[in-house]
Each structure stands twice: as C-alpha cells, then as structure tokens.
C-alpha cells in the first residue's frame, strides 16, 4: 500500500473542491443584498422617526435584522439560503442570529434548562467570547490612549 505521505498528497490533489467562482459570486450577491436590506430598514426608520439619533437608528436596525434572521431560521428557510450562499449569509448579523436560534431549536427536546439554555451558544459561543475580549482590549487601550 502507499506510504502515508504519498497517500495524503494523492488525496489533497484529487479530492473535489468547492467551485470558487460560483460560491464567491453567490456569497457576494446574497451578503450584499442582506446588507442592502439592513440599510433600507435604517433609512425607513429615519424617515418615520425624524428626531432619532443615528446611533439609535443603528441599534433598531440591528434588532430588526436579528429578528428577521431568527424568524427565517424558525421557518426553516435560512439554512436553505446558507447552503446556496455560504459566507454571504453567515457573516451578516442575520447569520449570527441563525447560529444562536438553530441550536436552541435543535436542543428544544432536551428541555428548557439543560436543552435550550445550556446548548444555545454551542455555535455562537466563540463569537461572543471573542467579541467581549476584543471590546475589553479596545476599551483598555482607548482609556490610556485618550
């Protein structure tokens, strides 16, 4: 039989790869569309509530996008979009909502406490940890730099 190294080379050369062009274009279009929808929602909020500050508009916009991501996950549509778009639907905030809601739905059967609450962050956990650590570091540096 082949040597380890020889076999690993054979596999890495011959294993089927993702079609780069198609996946990149799909991710670009879908990711861009999701961001456009977010911007559109922001503009609509601004039109309705003229006195709202830009910061508040951004918060409301994120909330609505998170809600939409969760809703489409619950309806079983977001994973179909994800199969097609890949990174395009994972990177925006809707993808983050999907990564929290999908384990919550999956582990619903083990009960609320040890199921939903315990397993909800199995996928999104690292993102939250890195987010908290990064904001702490930036805040720390910012405090002394100011």
């Amino acid at each position: 039989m082949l040597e380890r190294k020889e076999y690993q080379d054979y596999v890495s050369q011959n294993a089927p790869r993702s079609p780069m062009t198609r996946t990149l274009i799909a991710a670009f279009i879908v990711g861009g569309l999701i961001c456009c929808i977010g911007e559109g929602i922001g503009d609509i909020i601004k039109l309705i509530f003229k006195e709202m500050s830009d910061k508040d508009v951004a918060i409301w916009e994120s909330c609505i996008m998170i809600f939409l991501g969760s809703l489409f996950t619950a309806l079983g549509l977001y994973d179909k979009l994800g199969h097609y778009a890949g990174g395009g639907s994972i990177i925006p905030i809707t993808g983050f909502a999907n990564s929290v809601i999908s384990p919550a739905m999956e582990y619903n059967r083990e009960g609320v406490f040890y199921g939903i609450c315990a397993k909800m962050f199995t996928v999104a956990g690292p993102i939250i940890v890195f987010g908290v650590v990064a904001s702490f570091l930036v805040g720390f540096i910012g405090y002394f730099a100011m």
Partner: protein
Amino acid sequence: MRTIKLKRPVYIKSGFTIVGPKEGDGNFGDCYDIVLNDDIWCEKSYEKCECKMHRDAITGAIKKAGLQREDIDILMGGDLLNELSPTSLAARNFPTAFLGLYNACSTFGEAMLVASMLIDAGFAKNITCSTSSHYSSAERQYRFPLELGNQRPPTAQWTVTGAGCTVLSSEMPSQMNERVYEDDIIAIDENMNIDEKTLEKYKKSIDKQKKVINISKSNILDGNYGKENNDYMRVNSHCAVVTGGTLGRVIDLGIDDEANMGAAMAPAACDTILTHFKESGLTPGDYDGIFTGDLGRFGRDTLKYLLSKEGITLPGYYMDTGASYYTPEQKTFQGGSGAGCVNTVFNSYILKKLQRGEYKRILVVPTGALLNKDTPLQQETIPGIAHAFTVESKAF
C-alpha cells in the same frame, strides 16, 4: 490469518428494511420494505424515531422469516449514536440476549461475521443482525444543528436514514417469504409492561403512525399476482448462504479531514480486499458482485487507484453502495453513508438478487471511519476499518 471459511452453511432467512423519504426517492427506492413519508414517524425526537425504526426492522425481519421473537437466540446490532442508544432501547422490546456492536458504518459487516461464526460453532441457531442510522440524529451528534445555514463541503456524505435487519439461521429458509402486514410492524407489544393510560395513548397513535408508512410497491399484493418483482408472491429459486469473510484491521494513513470520510476509509477497504484475495486464494473474477460500504464517489475512485497500485483491477460490476445510494439530483455530493447505508442496500436490492439467483457469489465490504466529535479537535487523525463477508446463492 484474518480470513474465515465457515464449515457449515449459515443461511440468510430474511432481510427487512425501513428507510426515510429521501432514501425512498433514491436509486434503490423500489426495493425497500417500508418507506416512511416523514423522517420523525410521529415521535418527539429523531433519536426516538431511529430507535423505533430499528425495533420495527427487527420485528419485520423476524416475521418475514416466519419465526417468533422467542425463536431468536441473540440480537446483534449497532448504530452511530453515543452508547448505542437506539439499538439498546430497541433491544428492550425483545426477550433475547443482546450484543451491542460498534464499528461505525461497518457495524453491519462485523455483526454478520460474528453472528455467522457463532452459528457455525453451534452456539446459536437464529441471530438477527441489525443496524440503523438517521440523518438528523447523526448530524446533531457529529456536526451542526439542522437549521444552521452552513455549506456542506463537496467531499461530504449524507447519512442514510434507515434501519435494516438480517436474520441468520442454521436452518434453510422457506422458498417464499412470509407476508408482513402493517399490523405486524406497528403492534402493541404484549411484553411491554406499561400502565393503562400509556396503553390508551399508544393505541391512539397507531393509526397516525400507519399513515406515515408506505409499504413498498413491490410488496403490495392486489392485482400483481405473478408479477416478477412482487416480493411475497415470488417463489425464491435460490437461498443466500454466508460462507465466510475477512476481519478488518484498523488502518490510519493520516487523513484528518472529518468531512472526507471516503479518503479515510479507502485504505482500510483496500487492505481488507487485498488480504481477502491473498488468504482465500480467490480473484475478483471468482465473484459476480463486489460491494463496498459507504466510500462515496471520491472514496470509490481512491480505492480503485489504491488497488490498481497493487495490481488488482476491480471489475465493472463493482459498486459502492454509498455512491450509488442517491440520485445526483438529490445533491448529496459524495452519496450516502452511515450504519444504515450498506445494510439497507444489502437487505433489499442485493438479497433479492441473490434469492433470484442473479448473483452466484458476492463480496460485501462495509467500511467505517472511527472517530467521534472530539478526536479531530484533539488533532487525532481518522482511522478506517472494513470487514468483508462473502455470500453465495444456492439453488433449492
């Protein structure tokens, strides 16, 4: 010496399969005994559904063989989930000895070999070999939640939702299979010690459960008398006999990509096939069917490449059951995998062909990748294993 030659014939009495809807649309869709219309079968979780499929595959196979559950000496089986939970939970419904086996997707091969050795040695008369897997329960254990919007890599395989059971016996089977009715599959189990309230609930759910199952076209009697593919009206011209096999070795050539199981398993399949031909003195030309488990399309090509390096060319009838399981339109990339993959194909498609005498001698090589969710994270590579067993058809 890893190759076994049985001294006494071990007959295959019957085979029974239950699969999910996606599998029913696949290439072997007409051959299964039961195709479910949904993949949860009125249960609260996919794990419970897998357990029920497993239990009812065993029930169906025992019934089809014309036996009672008391006639079975040992239940042997396994699946992919932690601590073999579906198999163990299914086994509590049977008043028989139970041996749980695990060799990942090659569990079926392991069960067939161990069972036929036990029967050959005279320790048991009737043994059931069953395995099951479920796409949704396996996905949750090994990969990500179902609704997560991630992309599957092109080397990924689709875990088969299916359970199958073979009844091995030292006695010759009858020429006609027993008819299995819906009521035999979904029946109230007298051995279950449950209170009246649960029993009432159970009775109510039976009709609902029946609506979900879809007895395969080939098993429906009305008006099809004499039709060739009619399983229960057909008089089998041959019976299938397990004659031996080769036990597998764990082979690791350092593949660490858990999304590319085919590449991890192909060297093990190659090793087992080479050993089998070397130790038995047979050549690929002595067989008229060679089946590997669930290498997938890439794994199948890798196996062909590995064997060609050793000077063995696999003949044109060689088939990988995983690669052939689904149609290309079903977008499973590499094809089917899982403990139920080779089992459901063997107990439906291959067994029927053996009983018609279309195959004289076949070699079945179920393959398995031995990993759990944590080993790749701990930088372990993925070893593979493959067991081979030979089945011959003998005229009645």
